[in-house]
């Protein structure tokens, strides 16, 4: 009798379909990001139980509920801290962190900076719509100067931050920008980001169709220009990346700004993980180690 070998079923889009459908406003940029993440996971053939999708709070942070993985919907601004703990405790998981500009650059700004310098091996996708949506339209850290919102009805008098420059300065080892409406390009960036060993940051223009009437799909479309279309652009050149990150106006670069692969990841640098993922390690001390701790005190 011939032995039947079960051929593993290829991982398909349907595998990643969440328990509920997204409740984002019709036309929201986040739909494109969700589809791009699902597509990237399918193309990389990563089983869903090996993926953790972790978010903060906000419209885009409802993301983990709309994709079937090990999801975690944490506190406003805290997704990167939670994700770091999760990755360090089980570094075999592919960890995706999703959220918005308010969540990541406002309330979570401190964790953003420190997670980058630590080179935690995860992909951080910010659905940047330059507005607070779930709280019905207030100024965000990326809202443009002069933009009128419910919290600054006479126009924003505070300069917006530049997430790409900040990421480069903080030592992120993969820095990219995508556009929700350019799905094919975004899928490629997400795949690169997942495969990058270290902290990958993708700032995605994901327009808010309800509250941001300035930075709309129509506004972005003629402006975004892919770095990949420039054969001379070298994404290993940090200085060039910094220079490109400052471009804003008639031409806004998207694509992979920067990548370096020579730095160890945080989990790779800690010798405690040589014995394998923490979660699979023995939790009892070897008797000689326990005894040595007591002997020190005698």
């Amino acid at each position, binding site marked *: 009798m011939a032995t039947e070998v079960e051929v593993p079923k290829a991982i398909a889009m349907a595998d990643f379909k969440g*328990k*509920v459908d997204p*409740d984002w406003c019709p036309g929201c940029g986040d739909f494109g990001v969700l589809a791009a993440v699902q597509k990237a996971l399918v193309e990389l053939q990563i*089983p*869903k*139980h*090996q993926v*953790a999708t*972790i978010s903060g*709070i906000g419209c885009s942070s*409802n993301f*983990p*509920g709309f994709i*079937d*993985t*090990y*999801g*975690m*919907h*944490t*506190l406003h601004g*805290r997704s990167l*801290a*939670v*994700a*770091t*703990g*999760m*990755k*360090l*405790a*089980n570094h*075999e*998981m592919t960890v995706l962190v999703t959220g918005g500009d308010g969540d990541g650059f406002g309330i979570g700004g*401190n*964790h953003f*900076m*420190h997670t980058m310098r630590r080179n935690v091996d995860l992909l951080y996708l910010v659905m940047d719509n330059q507005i607070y949506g779930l709280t019905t339209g207030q100024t965000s850290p990326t809202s443009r100067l002069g933009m009128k919102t419910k919290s600054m009805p006479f126009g924003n008098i505070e300069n917006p931050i530049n997430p790409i420059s900040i990421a480069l300065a903080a030592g992120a080892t993969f820095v990219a920008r995508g556009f929700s409406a350019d799905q094919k390009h975004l899928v490629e960036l997400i795949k690169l980001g997942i495969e990058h060993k270290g902290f990958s940051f993708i700032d995605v223009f994901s327009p808010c169709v309800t509250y941001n009437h300035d930075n709309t799909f129509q506004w972005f479309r003629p402006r975004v220009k892919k770095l990949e279309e420039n054969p001379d652009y070298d994404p290993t050149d940090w200085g060039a990346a910094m220079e490109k990150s400052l471009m804003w106006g008639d031409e806004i670069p998207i694509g992979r700004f920067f990548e370096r692969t020579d730095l160890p990841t945080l989990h790779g640098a*800690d*010798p*405690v*993980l040589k*014995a394998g993922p*923490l*979660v699979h*390690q*023995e*939790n*009892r*001390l070897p008797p000689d*180690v*326990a005894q*040595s*701790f*007591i002997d020190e*005190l*005698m």
Partner: protein
Amino acid sequence: MRQSFAIGIGGAAGQGVATPGDIFAKIFSRRGLHLNAYNAYQSIIRGGHTFLTIRTGPDKVSNVGDRIDLLVPLNQDTMDRHLRLLSAGGACLYNSDSIKPGVPAAGVQMCPIPVSKLADISRNKVAQNTLAIGAGLSMMGVGFAALESVLAEQFRKKEQAVIDENVSLARAGYDYASQNFTPFAWPLPMTETRYAVLSGNAALAMGGAAAGVKFYSAYPMSPSTGVLHWMADHGRKANIMVRQVEDEIGVINMAIGAAHAGVRAMCATSGGGFALMSEALGLAAQAEIPIVVIDCQRAGPSTGVPTKTEQGDLWQMLGAAFGDYPRVIAAPLDIGDCFTLIPEIFNIADRFQCPAIVLCDLLLSEGRLSVDPKVLDFYPAIDRGEFITSNGSGAHQPYKRYKITESGVSPRVIPGVPGHTHVVSSDEHDEDGVLISDEYTNTTKRRAMMEKRMRKVDGIEASVPPPKLHGPADAEVTLIGWGSTHGVIHEACELLADQGISANHLPIRWLVPLHGDTILDLLKDARRTIIIENNFSGQFARYLRSETSFVPNGHIRKYDGEPFLPHHIVESVKEQLAGKTKLSVPTHEIMV
């Protein structure tokens, strides 16, 4: 009355108060003596004033006591401030080159050491300390060999010449004292027992290692930093990941992430750091992720008195994070208990998938105690609760992370196990983890989920032992305390008994669950009840009243930054028994 001997060493920060303390502690514990040490210090790295008290004796020494037998002032300031602590039989060893003696009480022996005649002070800046250690031990009747071996250990990382120099200095002090000073009336005894000497912070950290903690995160904050230091020093050997994080918000969220991944995760802080953590405590409760947070209380509010002790964070713990959720709060009774409590509370946190808080304080965290090494059991029971770690045959009902159960506990799964993907959430959710926070008609689901979580409270209460009353049942007065006051109240009861006043003691270790009915039952026949706590407003008294309607006859409170000493309690009890007051606030005599 129990026999004990106490040394006070004072000086400016940076003058080397700690080293003589460590040397005395080692010699006492190796002599088979118990000891308790407490350092009163300022938030200053160099200068200021530091006063270390070490008390030793053949029986358990639960606090630093009321009496100093030997005072070693390393500077004039210490002589001026503390000489008055000595009474008949006591002695003061000081550098007669640089310190002018004060006027001692009758019967106090003043012992000047001519340091420049005995040592080359141009080369050795701390010569006076080593001479004083030698002299002190000679007067205590301790043989020189013990000191020689401890000095060799203390300076083992230095070259032999340094060891030799220190040994000969100590010898000079030892011999000078035996020729010139009168030994103490009570030579220190010896026993065959050997004790480990450790701080509460080391005990908390080691308790974590024993409990199987694999992830420890912290931000430096006095007086909890010692836990981080122990973990950082030993983490690689113990295979514990130790991370210093950007702030306490990051600390607890990182710990929650690690705990969700399936490891035991712990963090420690003080009141200010805990305030930053409180929102995430609610996340752990709502997402049902077990974590243990240690709060080493210091005197507050705000930056408060960073180097001083207080029991002022109880209400912060009771009210931490908004909304109703099951939590566990326990206060270790002494430094040994800092170790034993951690595995116990982890088992509760894991079984009931909720946050647990250890309410320690500076007195225990930074104090030192001799502990029988058997107490430091690195193999306690570990109960991870209902925990799915594999997909088994793969055939199972669709997994529901928040399945409604009678106990309120829904089996957890290690993320990574096939067939069990789900979302955990800070938002209210349904049994399968789907958010219901935004549903139009969700009152039934919300109520069911709230009741599921809160049902865990009954299970937690049944898993935690109720408090016990210690001492004579018909005592004249019942002293009620919680956490770190255990030792000093115990000694106060003994001192009261010596004075013909029978007292018993109700120490509270588990604050939530409190076992209020048991407490009422234990106190129903009490003749007079006094609640003792290291805070201004009687936080425990107010909590006990809110849970049980119990109102005690009196209170003893202290909120000056220093811990209670036995006589504070004895004198307060006596004034209350005499009907003078219902609220005693004893004055601390040692001014630091």
